[in-house]
């Protein structure tokens, strides 16, 4: 009986355990495998105890075999259960290790992220500092550009007057020869000063990357001749021999930047003259090889220029820095003279022209500078008005009377331009600022306006815009005139409505050439060989002026001086018998009540030929 009770307890415990196992479905530490094993063990234990209990109760006596088999399975199930537990522990350890590694990895990632964030913050800080430095540098650069622009303007404006008046005075035959020499000195000194200013500005532009090639048609032979002429006098003045050697097959007409080419050649030859005490200087020009096509239409060629001297030469140390800016040679009489920018600029110019520059030298044996340019070859004589240096004497006979308005706040420059234009026969009016110019235009529109850009009250840009908006404002030619050295000012002037741009200090040639281009006027030149050859697009206007009879001219002159319109009109018919064109010009002058102009015309006609 006791044994039966014990078996029942066993049976009940197994059944209760099974029930508990199935009720508690979610048991965290028990994985599915262990739960199955445990269920199996409890099931077999339950069957075993059931067999024992039934056997005791005598309900069935045929369960011995089942009891034996199940009984043998129980220790095996225990073994499997313990093995499963050990596997679970091992799996747990692996998971723990994995977690540990993950945590370590996360820690590393966090550390690295923190480091990266720190690095990013530092870089951001550096970036901010760099940006700030860049902004400061840009501000400084802008300030430098403004300063250069301002300095350029301030220096060029008086230089314009110095050079312009000294050139204008050379026209005066009353000035004696020794004073002419003095004028020449003033002119050359002014030009030297201008060259120094230009060097500094050029270097500044090169450093700012704003120097651009302005290719034009160049007569290479004429350019070389003019440079040869210039250098020869200086070389021979020092007792040096100057030789120029270029072969006959050197192309005459090329397309390149004439100013850059001249500047490089003059700089190299000028240095050679400056530093050579005795011996000779040689300029060699050659264009070896064949012409190759630069693009579809224009063939191109590399031209080599070589300047050799017998000067003191350069040491190897000097050769290393010879093209550096603000570096001057240690030898020679010119030590300390100039800006030390010439060769640096020459190198940049040579590169801009598609070539390069090099130097070979030995101390005591002389120096050889070689530079090359890549230039397009032009087939025939190009039309490039910039290369003529003839002096304009007067307007060609029959040229209509053009009214020119000079808008300039600087009195010296205004006077210079007025005198220059009046001298050749233009009728000139003046305005001291933009507002004055606009008012003058409203009263009587001129044919042509020289417009200074930097003026008080109203600048040239605004004045140009306002004039363009007025009736007839589109017909007048407006040419900007400024002492600024920067291309951007040219663009601003063109954007404001100007037709062209002339930089101060201007030359007579530039002034008259621009006027010829825009007004289509013809000139008579001082050079008698070129007297019949005028720079014009309207050759029909050229005619030799017919001298008026002296009596008629004197009577007209007197009537003009007395402002006697009626008398002048009565005399115009007589004039028409001699020169119809002159009669029309006089009529136009009377209509404009421009007696000053009339007197000027009569002055010219009185000499029978242009002065």
């Amino acid at each position: 009986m006791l044994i039966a009770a014990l078996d029942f307890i066993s049976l009940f415990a197994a059944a209760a355990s099974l029930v508990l196992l199935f009720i508690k479905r979610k048991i965290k530490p028990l994985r599915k495998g262990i739960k199955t094993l445990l269920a199996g063990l409890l099931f077999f234990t339950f069957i075993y105890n059931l067999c024992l209990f039934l056997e005791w109760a005598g309900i069935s006596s045929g369960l011995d075999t089942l009891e034996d088999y199940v009984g043998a399975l129980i220790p095996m199930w225990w073994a499997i259960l313990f093995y499963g537990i050990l596997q679970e522990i091992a799996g747990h350890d692996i998971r723990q290790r994995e977690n540990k590694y993950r945590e370590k990895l996360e820690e590393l990632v966090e550390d690295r992220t923190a480091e990266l964030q720190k690095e990013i913050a530092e870089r951001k800080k550096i970036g901010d500092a760099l940006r700030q430095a860049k902004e400061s540098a840009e501000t400084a650069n802008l300030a430098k550009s403004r300063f250069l622009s301002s300095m350029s303007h301030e220096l060029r404006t008086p230089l314009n007057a110095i050079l312009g008046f000294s050139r204008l005075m050379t026209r005066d035959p009353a000035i004696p020869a020794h004073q002419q020499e003095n004028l020449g000195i003033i002119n050359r000194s002014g030009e030297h000063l201008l060259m120094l200013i230009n060097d500094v500005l050029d270097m500044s532009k090169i450093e700012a990357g704003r120097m651009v090639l302005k290719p034009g048609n160049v007569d290479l032979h004429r350019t070389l001749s003019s440079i040869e002429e210039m250098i020869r006098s200086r070389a021979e003045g020092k007792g040096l021999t100057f030789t120029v050697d270029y072969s006959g097959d050197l192309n005459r007409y090329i397309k390149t930047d004439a100013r850059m080419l001249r500047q490089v050649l003059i700089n190299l030859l000028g240095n050679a003259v400056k530093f050579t005490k005795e011996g000779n200087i040689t300029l060699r020009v050659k264009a070896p090889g064949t012409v190759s096509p630069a693009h579809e239409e224009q063939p191109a060629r590399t031209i080599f220029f070589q300047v050799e001297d017998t000067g003191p030469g350069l040491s190897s140390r000097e050769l290393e820095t010879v093209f550096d800016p603000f570096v001057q040679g240690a030898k020679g009489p010119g030590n300390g003279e100039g800006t030390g920018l010439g060769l640096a600029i020459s190198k940049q110019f040579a590169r801009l022209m598609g070539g390069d520059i090099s130097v070979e030298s030995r101390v005591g044996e002389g120096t050889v500078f070689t530079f090359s340019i890549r230039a397009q070859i032009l087939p025939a004589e190009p039309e490039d008005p910039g290369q003529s240096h003839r002096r304009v004497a007067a307007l060609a006979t029959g040229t209509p009377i053009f009214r020119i308005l000079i808008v300039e706040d600087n009195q010296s420059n205004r006077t210079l331009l007025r005198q220059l234009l009046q001298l050749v026969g233009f009728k000139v009016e003046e305005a001291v600022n933009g507002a004055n110019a606009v008012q003058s235009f409203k009263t009587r529109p001129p044919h042509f306006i020289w417009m200074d850009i930097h003026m008080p009250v109203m600048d040239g840009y605004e004045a140009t815009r306002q004039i363009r908006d007025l009736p007839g404002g589109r017909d007048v030619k407006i040419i900007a005139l400024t002492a600024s050295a920067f291309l951007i000012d040219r663009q601003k002037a063109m954007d404001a409505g100007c037709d062209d741009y002339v930089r101060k200090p201007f030359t007579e040639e530039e002034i008259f050439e621009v006027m010829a281009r825009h007004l289509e006027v013809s000139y008579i030149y001082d050079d008698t060989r070129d007297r019949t050859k005028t720079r014009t697009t309207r050759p029909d206007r050229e005619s030799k002026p017919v001298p008026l009879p002296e009596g008629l001219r004197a009577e007209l002159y007197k009537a003009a001086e007395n402002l006697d319109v009626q008398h002048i009109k009565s005399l115009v018919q007589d004039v028409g018998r001699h020169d119809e064109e002159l009669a029309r010009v006089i009529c136009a002058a009377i209509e404009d009540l421009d007696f000053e102009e009339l007197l000027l015309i009569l002055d010219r006609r009185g000499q029978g030929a242009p002065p």
Partner: protein
Amino acid sequence: MPIQENEGVMLLLGIGLLIFVLGNYRRLVRFPYVNILVTGFVILTAGWLLTVLESFFWGDVLNLLEHMCYAASGIVTAVWLWLFTRQNKGIR
């Protein structure tokens, strides 16, 4: 009463397993309340030993003890399961 073969096999398997369990006890002990489970198994193994021994001497007494061991083992295992399911402890 002669010894039964299946009882001998059970005892041998039980002793072999007991040695294995005791040999791995330090690892097994990390499992929640495993000492109770092992106790249940040891008691069961004792029951298997008693059922073999009852063939040699003190038949009735040892038979009674054998069934007591089975009952005790069942209770201990049920307690272990109850504790185990109630506590939700993890492996240490």
